[in-house]
């Protein structure tokens, strides 16, 4: 499969000497649904800015569908649609105009742009608001407007920088369905998000940036299989006894009725329950605390104790 995006040794030092990217490498295949994860300030938006021509890189190379971004920036811009993290439209412009102007910058005639804008605004449930100025939209609506704008020139690669921040649950689900549909029709999608559940349900491949360095690039499946540790909360209807003997698993007493148990691959939940019931504790409710990917993410980015995941 041809490579949609290939980044080599990309570095970025901002004018205030802050090093945001320390030589990252990244490959995204065509047709992929790719998650670029990382904590706040990891450098995701910086990397995206360079790919899209919003920022000058310090060194390294970026190729999009085999075209070098440094040499043929405009050719690359034709291929990409960007939905940025921050609102970046003129708040006083009517939203339909925003889409038509964006199309105009891509060389699409007003007549064609109007048709395309209508399709997208309807899809984003913004058609009723087409003559309203952008300022009058709610936060979630503004995000949808930016998604529509990113799609107006029918790009081959869609880059979404935190697309669902501030979007309500219902719209988020429908946005996911729409993105899946676009991806199924061949569009390569690269997404950053802090909702790991979103990455897990949408993306096939994943990269994790941490403090400007790429610490992981793998498939979602492989990554999740690494997540062999699970944190469960076990609840008892009766008060727990003072002493609990547990030789093969770690636990923590949360209150008089509940225990937090960390399960590795060596012990199963059945064994844990057996050990507990042997001491007269009959667990009547089990829930998991964290999303598996979330636990793993925290471990990889060093935000929690690494030895938990050995």
């Amino acid at each position: 499969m041809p490579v949609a995006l290939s980044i080599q040794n990309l570095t970025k030092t901002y004018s205030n000497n802050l090093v945001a990217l320390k030589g990252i490498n990244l490959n995204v295949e065509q047709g992929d649904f790719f998650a670029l994860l990382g904590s706040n300030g990891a450098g995701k938006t910086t990397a995206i800015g360079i790919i899209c021509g919003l920022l000058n890189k310090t060194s390294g190379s970026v190729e999009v569908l085999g075209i070098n971004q440094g040499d043929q920036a405009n050719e690359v811009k034709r291929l990409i649609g960007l939905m940025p993290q921050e609102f970046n439209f003129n708040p006083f412009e009517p939203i339909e105009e925003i889409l038509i102007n964006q199309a105009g910058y891509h060389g699409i005639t007003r007549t064609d742009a109007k048709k395309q804008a209508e399709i997208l605004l309807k899809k984003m449930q913004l058609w009723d608001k087409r003559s309203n100025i952008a300022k009058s939209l709610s936060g979630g609506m503004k995000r949808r407007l930016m998604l529509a704008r990113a799609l107006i020139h029918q790009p081959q690669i869609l880059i979404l920088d935190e697309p669902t921040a501030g979007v309500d649950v219902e719209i988020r689900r429908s946005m996911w369905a729409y993105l899946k549909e676009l991806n199924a029709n061949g569009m390569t999608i690269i997404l950053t998000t802090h909702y790991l559940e979103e990455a897990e349900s949408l993306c096939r491949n994943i990269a994790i940036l941490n403090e400007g360095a790429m610490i992981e690039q793998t498939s979602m499946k492989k990554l999740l299989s690494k997540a062999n540790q699970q944190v469960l909360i076990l609840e008892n209807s009766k008060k727990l006894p003072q002493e609990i003997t547990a030789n093969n698993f770690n636990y923590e007493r949360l209150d008089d009725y509940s225990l937090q148990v960390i399960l590795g691959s060596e012990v199963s939940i059945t064994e844990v329950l057996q050990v507990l019931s042997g001491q007269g504790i009959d667990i009547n409710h089990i829930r998991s605390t964290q999303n598996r990917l979330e636990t793993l993410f925290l471990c990889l980015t060093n935000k929690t104790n690494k030895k938990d995941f050995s």
Partner: protein
Amino acid sequence: MWIAYKTIIVKEILRFSRIWVQTIFPPIITTSLYLLIFGGLMGQRIGVMQGVDYLHFIIPGIILMTVIQNSYANTVSSFFLAKFNHSIEELLVSPVPYWVILLGYISGGVARGLAVGISVLITVYLFVDFEINNFFIAFTTFLLTAILFSLAGFINAVFAQSFDDITIVPTFILMPMTYLGGMFYSVEILPQFWQDVSKFNPIYYMVDSFRLGFFGTSTSDLLTSMSVLIVMIVILAALAFYLLKKGVNIKT
């Protein structure tokens, strides 16, 4: 490319038309006041300047001053706002060559200069009877002036980091230069030293050739004036293009 250019220029024209109360209307008021006070009331005492009665003499100056201020104001505020609300990114992620972006903004500034210039011209016509001696010279001067100050406004906007930065240059540099360039007087009335100093003020050449277009008389020759204007346009255009391409204060 043509579509992209058209999109930018239409957007620019719509922008200043939407806020016509702030853009088109004020120059009409100030022009009326200038004519009334300087031309009407004081002009009678001043009499004749450069062979023309004072009321007529100040007309080209007033029009050109309006053009200078408005072309400058249009690009400086439009480009600065686009930077400020990040909508400039809409252009930067699109395959629009930098020279088209620049041309679009400059055309917007020229369009505003033209819109305001014509409104002022009509206003003047309501008060005073006058004729334009050589329309071609007047129009060319107007056009070059509008281009030059649109470029200057653009460059100001690139460097501006705050709203204060877009008012400093107009207030402390542009305004004095305009007044000292002979908007309301002929440099002939100045002592020799100040006459020579005026020759370093580009606005002097613009007013002078604009007046030549109106009255057929001038204090400097047309060729010099046009050369000064064109050379300055070339320099500022090259600088503006360089700044935009490098992404100074935008892509760092």
